[in-house]
């Protein structure tokens, strides 16, 4: 390979698209490193504090697409204080000052201010795609700037963000000359939108393939939009409330029938269940159906809808579907690969309408199942063993029993054997979340069998340090470990501190680790940032090393301590 000119190697590298593979390529030799870095266009940074924007820019001058993740995963569940960090502004500022021709920015769990959006919109002539997932800190004013200034915008995708909706006219800010939109998702916005502006925008976007509306878009507007965009592939319905005898409903039926390309359907943020028959004509082609925000849809109406969806590959649903409904899924959706069952009442533990029975039915009926998120009332070892036998292809297996320390209700035993069966059978398992009553034994199984495991989430489990040690010693490919309310202490934490350098991050909250233990890790491993998050300010008054640490988050980094940590975060 030394005899090939650079251009040839570069051409070969063009075919290598996965981040992991490109990273590997860059490690082969200096020459490959050099060619790879100049030709790299897409970069993924799983922890925004692991590297600085300056170093990113220096290494990859040809950067076009950047993905950044900020807060740790448990921030989704309110375990991380609001202003902990994850600000995107410094990144945009640095990129704007450089000569990087940024075209795509994808952010997850980051704090995005209106200033950052405005700066972004004005700094990159060819900016095409903005995807924000679970972010916060911006308002519709920031969106207005993106709409107004990004002349070649193709994608604006807002997923589950907390946006301060000023009910402004951000949609009207797309200039008449903007005709390049391919994807527009504003389902998470709570305020009114200018319906006329929306209709005109869709009319002049012939390439629009994905459109997800918010609750404020009523049915008759939906009908008009569908008439103008029958080429849609992905549709998110906002409000689906109407009188089945009305003219609007008839028009909608006609409009929907024209949309023969729709493969993905979501939304129904407001729904009149007796009007679902209008949707049936497109159900047969759906590969993705997300009804997880439609609690109004359940019982027979829901089952009838699902019976029309024979080609479903991914289904996101609420637990009001019940075990019986899952039985219908098992009979109908033979192509199913991913199932997510969310709790319809996330506030009251113990009210889930699905049990182990539903899961067993789906595992029996859907042999291609490889990804699961399942919130349920209870689980048994027998069921998990059956599921493991039926579906050995799980890549992601996340089980959440609403009572987090509930044993097998039939045998009163911990769920060690059940989860053990899962990790033993599913040799390709990459992500696992545990719940229910669990002892050290389940971790022995995980350490022994889960060879491909990359991410593990543990809560209210284990009896001793041994549990954590089994995992750290056994799971060679572990990248992210997040633990809450487990009896793991300093002995486990300090057993093999070198391991943490091979991982992206470790989160431990309400465990038994002490300040002294955390300090020891920080001292031995300067390549790690060890953060203590302590809002109660106990750490200020009591610097006793034996003090238990409420929240610890450590991660590998090439750039040392971050400068933007709030007062209650100690970086040791």
């Amino acid at each position, binding site marked *: 390979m030394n005899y090939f000119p650079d251009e040839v190697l570069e051409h070969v590298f063009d075919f290598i698209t996965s981040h992991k593979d490109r990273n590997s390529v860059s490690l082969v030799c200096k020459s490959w490193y050099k060619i790879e870095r100049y030709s790299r266009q897409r970069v993924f940074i799983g922890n925004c504090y692991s590297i600085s924007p300056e170093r990113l820019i220096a290494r990859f001058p040809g950067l076009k697409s950047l993905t950044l993740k900020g807060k740790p995963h448990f921030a989704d569940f309110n375990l991380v204080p609001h202003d902990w960090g994850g600000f995107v502004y410094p990144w945009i500022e640095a990129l704007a000052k450089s000569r990087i021709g940024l075209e795509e920015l994808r952010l997850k769990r980051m704090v995005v201010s209106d200033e950052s959006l405005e700066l972004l919109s004005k700094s990159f002539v060819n900016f095409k795609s903005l995807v924000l997932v679970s972010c916060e800190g911006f308002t519709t004013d920031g969106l207005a700037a993106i709409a107004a200034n990004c002349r070649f915008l193709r994608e604006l995708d807002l997923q589950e963000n907390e946006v301060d909706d000023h009910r402004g006219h951000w949609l009207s800010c797309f200039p008449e000359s903007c005709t390049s939109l391919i994807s527009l998702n504003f389902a998470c916005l709570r305020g009114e939108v200018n319906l006329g502006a929306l209709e005109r925008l869709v009319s002049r976007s012939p390439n629009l393939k994905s459109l997800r509306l918010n609750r404020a878009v009523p049915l008759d507007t939906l009908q008009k939009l569908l008439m103008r965009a029958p080429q849609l592939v992905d549709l998110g319905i906002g409000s689906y409330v109407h*009188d089945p005898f009305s003219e609007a409903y008839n028009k909608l039926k006609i409009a929907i029938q024209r949309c023969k390309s729709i493969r993905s359907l979501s939304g129904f943020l*407001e729904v009149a269940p007796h009007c679902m028959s209008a949707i049936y004509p497109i159900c047969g082609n759906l590969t993705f159906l997300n009804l997880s*925000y439609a609690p109004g849809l359940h019982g027979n109406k829901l089952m009838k809808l699902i019976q029309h969806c024979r080609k479903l590959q991914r289904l996101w649903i609420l637990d009001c579907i019940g075990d019986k409904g899952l039985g219908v899924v098992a009979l109908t959706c033979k192509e199913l690969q991913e199932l997510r069952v969310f709790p319809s009442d*996330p506030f009251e533990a113990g009210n889930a309408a699905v049990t182990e029975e539903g899961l067993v039915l789906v595992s029996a009926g859907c042999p291609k199942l490889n990804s699961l998120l399942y919130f349920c009332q209870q689980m048994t070892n027998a069921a998990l063993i059956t599921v493991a036998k039926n579906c050995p292809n799980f890549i992601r297996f996340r089980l959440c029993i609403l009572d*987090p320390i509930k044993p097998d209700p039939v045998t009163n035993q911990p769920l060690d054997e059940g989860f053990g069966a899962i990790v033993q059978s599913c040799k390709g398992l990459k992500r696992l979340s545990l719940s229910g009553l669990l002892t050290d034994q389940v971790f022995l199984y995980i350490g022994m069998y889960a060879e491909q495991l990359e991410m593990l989430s543990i809560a209210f489990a284990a009896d001793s340090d041994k549990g954590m040690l089994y995992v750290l010693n056994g799971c060679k490919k572990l990248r992210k470990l997040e633990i809450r309310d487990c009896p793991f202490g300093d002995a486990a934490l300090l057993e093999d501190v070198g391991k943490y350098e091979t991982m992206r991050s470790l989160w431990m909250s309400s465990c038994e680790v002490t300040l002294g233990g955390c300090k020891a890790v920080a001292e031995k491993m300067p390549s790690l940032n060890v953060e203590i998050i302590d809002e109660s300010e106990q750490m200020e008054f009591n610097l006793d090393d034996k003090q238990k640490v409420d929240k610890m988050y450590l991660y590998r980094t090439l750039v040392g301590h971050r400068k933007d940590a709030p007062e209650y975060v100690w970086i040791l």
Partner: protein
Amino acid sequence: MENDLNLKATELRLGLPGSDEPERQMIPRPNKRTLSDIVSEGSRSTTEEDHQDTAPPAKLQIVGWPPVRSYRKNCLQGKKDEVEGGTGMYVKVSVDGAPYLRKIDLKVYRSYPQLLLALENMFKLTIGAYSEREGYNGSDYAPTYEDRDGDWMLVGDVPWEMFISSCKRLRIMKGSEARGLGCV
């Protein structure tokens, strides 16, 4: 215990009564206990003091559990308020000039025409037809309702499902006041 005050029994502690866990934390950290501690503590008070508003024993209220994104929780909370009331949705109905109020179950009806017919029958009056432009103009009566924000709205403007989820009470206005609404 010679002391009548029996201080140990009234001591505010984090452990189960009878356990001798030393007081090492200055801040109460509920997650440090096992869940059974949390659950059993919910079912009996560990001190003589009256703990008001502790979670009822069967329900566990733990920070960050179940692990559901706050965005989703916020969305479903809003819907919970809407979908609630599975056993009927009774609202008061007043008619101007009538000596007492009535109550009707909105869940029984599927549409505005059905509701208006029922009201006409109940109070022996004529409400007439709804038009978007003129309301119930031409009729002596206009049905109005109080919504969640406390505003009085004309019945018929919003989609039915939206109406029943936001209607708190009904008032059938009469006479000149009623006719005045059509001009708004």
